């Protein structure tokens, strides 16, 4: 294999002018405060603006208009999840317009890879990913969100990111 190397010009062969040119670039960046101000986001005083409608943050379980959990325990999200972090237990629902409802809905937020497959799989738009990304917990057990916690996430973020579509409760 023949390697083609470009020949150096005369000033390049002296090496020093090139080094000084490099230092000119370096020094220019060093004193260019405006570029630094425009590039750097000083977290946590300033946060980056996210595209809220698409961002895949922590999950929430949506409620319908009557305040009940919208999930029908069809197990499609648990099947679709690549990380196997959703665990559901279904039971007969106490309401007339629905067959089943979840009595246990746990998501291990540390195992989750935030891919959004559960959101895509859900037929009733019950599970959604919110733009909330600042999750802090003191232990691994604390980061397993159960049904109450996921509903609480909904209560907190319903204003920021409304539901995608009207809730589907009956099967007309």
């Amino acid at each position, binding site marked *: 294999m023949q390697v083609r*190397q470009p020949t*150096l010009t005369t000033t390049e*062969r002296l090496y020093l002018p090139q080094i000084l040119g490099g230092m000119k670039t370096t020094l220019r960046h060093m004193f260019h405060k405006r570029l*630094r101000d425009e590039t750097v986001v000083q977290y946590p005083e300033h946060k980056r603006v996210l595209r809220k409608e698409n961002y895949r943050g922590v999950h929430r379980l949506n409620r319908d208009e009557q305040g009940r959990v919208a999930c029908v325990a069809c197990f499609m999200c648990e099947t679709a999840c690549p990380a196997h972090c959703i665990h559901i237990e279904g039971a007969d629902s106490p309401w007339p317009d629905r067959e089943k409802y979840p009595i246990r809905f746990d998501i291990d937020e540390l195992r989750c890879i935030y891919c959004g497959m559960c959101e895509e799989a859900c037929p009733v738009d019950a599970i959604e990913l919110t733009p909330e990304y600042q999750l802090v917990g003191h232990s691994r057990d604390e980061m397993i969100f159960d049904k109450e916690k996921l509903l609480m996430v909904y209560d907190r973020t319903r204003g920021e990111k409304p539901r995608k579509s009207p809730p589907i409760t009956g099967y007309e």
Partner: protein
Amino acid sequence: MNFFKAHPIFCVFCALILVGLPALFAVAWAWAAWHEAIQQAMADQLYFSVFLAVVVFGVIMGAVAYCILLERKISAWIQDRYGPNRVGPCGLLQPIADGLKFLLKEDIIPANVDKALFLLAPWMIFVVALIGFAIIPWGGEFRWPWMADDAEPLTAQVSSIDIGLLYLLAVSSLGVYGVVLGGWSSNNKYSFYGGMRAAAQMLSYEIPMGLCILVAILMSGQLRLEGIVAAQSAELLGVSALNWNVCYYPLAALILFITALAEANRMPFDLAESEQELVGGYHTEYSAMKLALFFLAEYAHMITASAFMVALFFGGYLIPGWTWLNEDTGVAAMLCRMAVTAAKIFGFIVLMMVVRWTLPRFRFDQLMRLGWKWLVPISMILVAAQTVIIYADWPRWPAALAANVLIFLAAGFFAAARDGKITGRQSSLRRRTGVSVQRA
């Protein structure tokens, strides 16, 4: 405790008053009781040197700690970001946080190391870097106000021995011991390999360093650093104190800068350090305070190298044209001269840090080739040129500058003859194996 958190400024103010007032009283009483003795002692060069040694040691330790912050800030600004700015205003308490972290970390000594050498290596390299400050001329000559006008002036220098630069060269050669001991005693073949490489680099770049220092010595004819600085206070082109050696031998100053970078294991010669980032190196097995000593020793080497570069080639404490600063023997002038020296050293440290983020690092064979095949012959020819100029008694300044320009161009032509490859292997590769490399 809640009161302290609620009113921090008031509490700090009270603490300062409670501690500061008694301290002031103590100092005033000591002065009133013993001021004769103190004045007598300070007028003596020995006691003053001890006092200055303590002051310089404290200042250099603080400077070395804040060099870490300076390096992080400068490298951040070059990379279009801010450095540490959370701990204290503008990150000024970051070195204290770093120091606390290093003090509180677990000190691990691996199982089969050579204990004595393992513990000795970081101290060796740090102490060697620090004792080089003994001969730097900080402030020149001065007299205290209570000394008679015809008394012997004091030199603001820790020791002004006759063999100043020889001491410096000896001490900087001892730095290789620390690196080799650190690599050898770690019981780790990668550390050993890194230590050997660092030692080879430091040794091979001491030769051009010594030769360039020899050029400065030949310029002034003496080994005492304050004599060399005093010789640079003569006139040149009608401007007083412009007789700086860099005006005569800029090439020697440049080679001294390059070899100082190599001695301190800085970019672009930090192959020993980059191995630490990648695989290992002479300080892989160290933790906590010993590791901190290795890093601080590198910055201390940088400050030492900048200090003697400033003293040898850039006029020490002289500013061209300011006769008051250069010749007055008052205390205020001495403090101003110290500030000038410190400012110049600071400038060189910033230059070293900017160069680190400008140039990529050398491969080890490129480094060796640059040192032995280029820097050693060039510095030898510089020494020969200076001796010829002195012997033939030519006018110093034009002859020296002409010699510099000629040597630089000759080196350029040699480099051009090798197709611009000062550090590459292409030409020797073609001769030995017959493989042809197509030129575009």
